[in-house]
């Protein structure tokens, strides 16, 4: 069993898992670097994906983008296994732990008993690390928990084999070949270029265009029912932005931290100023969330058009920001 494993608290599960996993395998990488290098920042408004009748709004790339992204760019060896039967999936986990592996799992949040009850929703793309087993309890490093936790075997099995959208099918993963020492400037430049491409993508629903379309939908929210539905709709946006482990401001602060760290690691100081600008944009996302929450609790009159205006302003800010990030990235490339 990996005896030297150290748990680290993170804001976002997937980048937290990869940060701990890579650090354990000899490449100390912060959560912010894991998130940024994998180009995980994004924005997407997907009206055809509905959760409890509300459209999916996401501030990052789809689940597994961080794991797969880092696997590719760091030329890591990783193995992914899914299982048809829960018993086989649990037996394989035990086998890997016995051989000393640190194992990543995809799970549902709902069935994990150590989660606060109010945060237990049927979200199936949660990630955590298992670093050992004592009797019938697994020793778990869940990045969004402050300390390491324990989980009974039966509960973990249920969480791993939950069904529905993004069903994990018992997915487990582990490192088979440790990462090579990366060429930071090259990886950083490419990561920036990928994120710029997504945020400024010439397709609707994604990036700044997705923000503008969402703003249009918010502006047209029906108020005939006294605003019940409109309040649920805007509450859902804020939940995706602040509550679902984003580190605040829909991952914008986390990405700013990545820019700062990349500037420090590579000595490319232009990124420091961009990080400061992104923090300001993140603050504006927080102001949007605050305004929305006040309307939900009727401390302020419900005015979807005012929220839509804030979203449009944010889209403008982010469009300018990512154009400048693109310029910085090209200038860096020489």
């Amino acid at each position, binding site marked *: 069993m990996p005896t030297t494993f150290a748990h680290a608290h993170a804001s976002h599960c997937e980048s937290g898992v990869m940060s701990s996993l890579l650090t354990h395998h000899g490449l100390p990488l912060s959560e912010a670097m894991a998130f940024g290098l994998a180009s995980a920042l994004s924005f997407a408004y997907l009206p055809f994906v509905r959760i409890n009748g509300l459209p999916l709004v996401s501030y990052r790339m789809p689940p597994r983008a961080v794991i797969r992204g880092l696997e590719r760019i760091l030329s890591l060896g990783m193995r992914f296994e899914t299982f048809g039967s829960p018993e086989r999936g649990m037996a394989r986990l035990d086998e890997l732990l016995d051989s000393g592996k640190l194992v990543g799992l995809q799970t549902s949040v709902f069935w994990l008993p150590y989660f606060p009850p109010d945060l237990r929703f049927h979200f199936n793309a949660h990630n955590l690390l298992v670093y050992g087993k004592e009797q019938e309890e697994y020793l778990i490093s869940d990045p969004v928990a402050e300390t390491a936790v324990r989980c009974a075997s039966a509960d973990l099995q249920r969480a791993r084999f939950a069904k529905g959208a993004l069903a994990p099918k018992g997915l487990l993963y582990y490192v088979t070949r440790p990462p090579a020492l990366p060429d930071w400037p090259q990886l950083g430049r490419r990561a920036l270029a990928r994120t710029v491409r997504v945020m400024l993508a010439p397709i609707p629903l994604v990036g700044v265009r997705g923000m503008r379309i969402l703003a249009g939908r918010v502006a047209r929210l029906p108020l005939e029912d006294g605003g019940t539905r409109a309040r649920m709709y805007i509450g859902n946006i804020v939940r995706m932005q602040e509550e679902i482990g984003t580190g605040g401001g829909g991952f914008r602060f986390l990405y*700013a931290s990545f820019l700062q760290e990349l500037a420090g690691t590579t000595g490319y100081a232009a990124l420091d100023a961009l990080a400061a600008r992104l923090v300001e944009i993140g603050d504006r996302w927080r102001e949007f969330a605050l305004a929305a*929450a006040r309307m939900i609790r009727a401390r302020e009159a419900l005015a979807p058009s005012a929220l839509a205006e804030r979203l449009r302003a944010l889209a403008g800010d982010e469009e300018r920001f990512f154009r400048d990030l693109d310029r910085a990235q090209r200038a860096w490339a020489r």
Partner: protein
Amino acid sequence: MLERDVPQEGNSTLAGHRKAVYALAEDGKLRRVPSRGWEVEEIVTRQAVEDLEQRAESALARARAGETSPLEYHMYRARMDVELLSQTTGLWRWRIRRHFNPAVFARLPLALRRRYAAALGIPVEALDTVD
């Protein structure tokens, strides 16, 4: 967001846990800071939880009045909807809706009741009542 402005409002939804957020420290560097919560998060989380609780309460009242089967109540109590229960059990949505009919539900074979109970994470006996 500055480190000293990181909300520490003790959200009930975090149940004593702290979550990590990123904020600017005095030296201008972003750091990971544990937060006891922000009221904004509490408001939107409670809103989503209360919506599910209301559905469960309404199903409970209707089940007591004999207008729906206990299955609908247990479904909402497990924070599911028909769509998710359908994916979890592998049953068609129209079949699940049909099982909300108390008369149909009363005749449900044990195998199906087991399937529902397993999907909802409750003992099969608990499925038959709302108490």
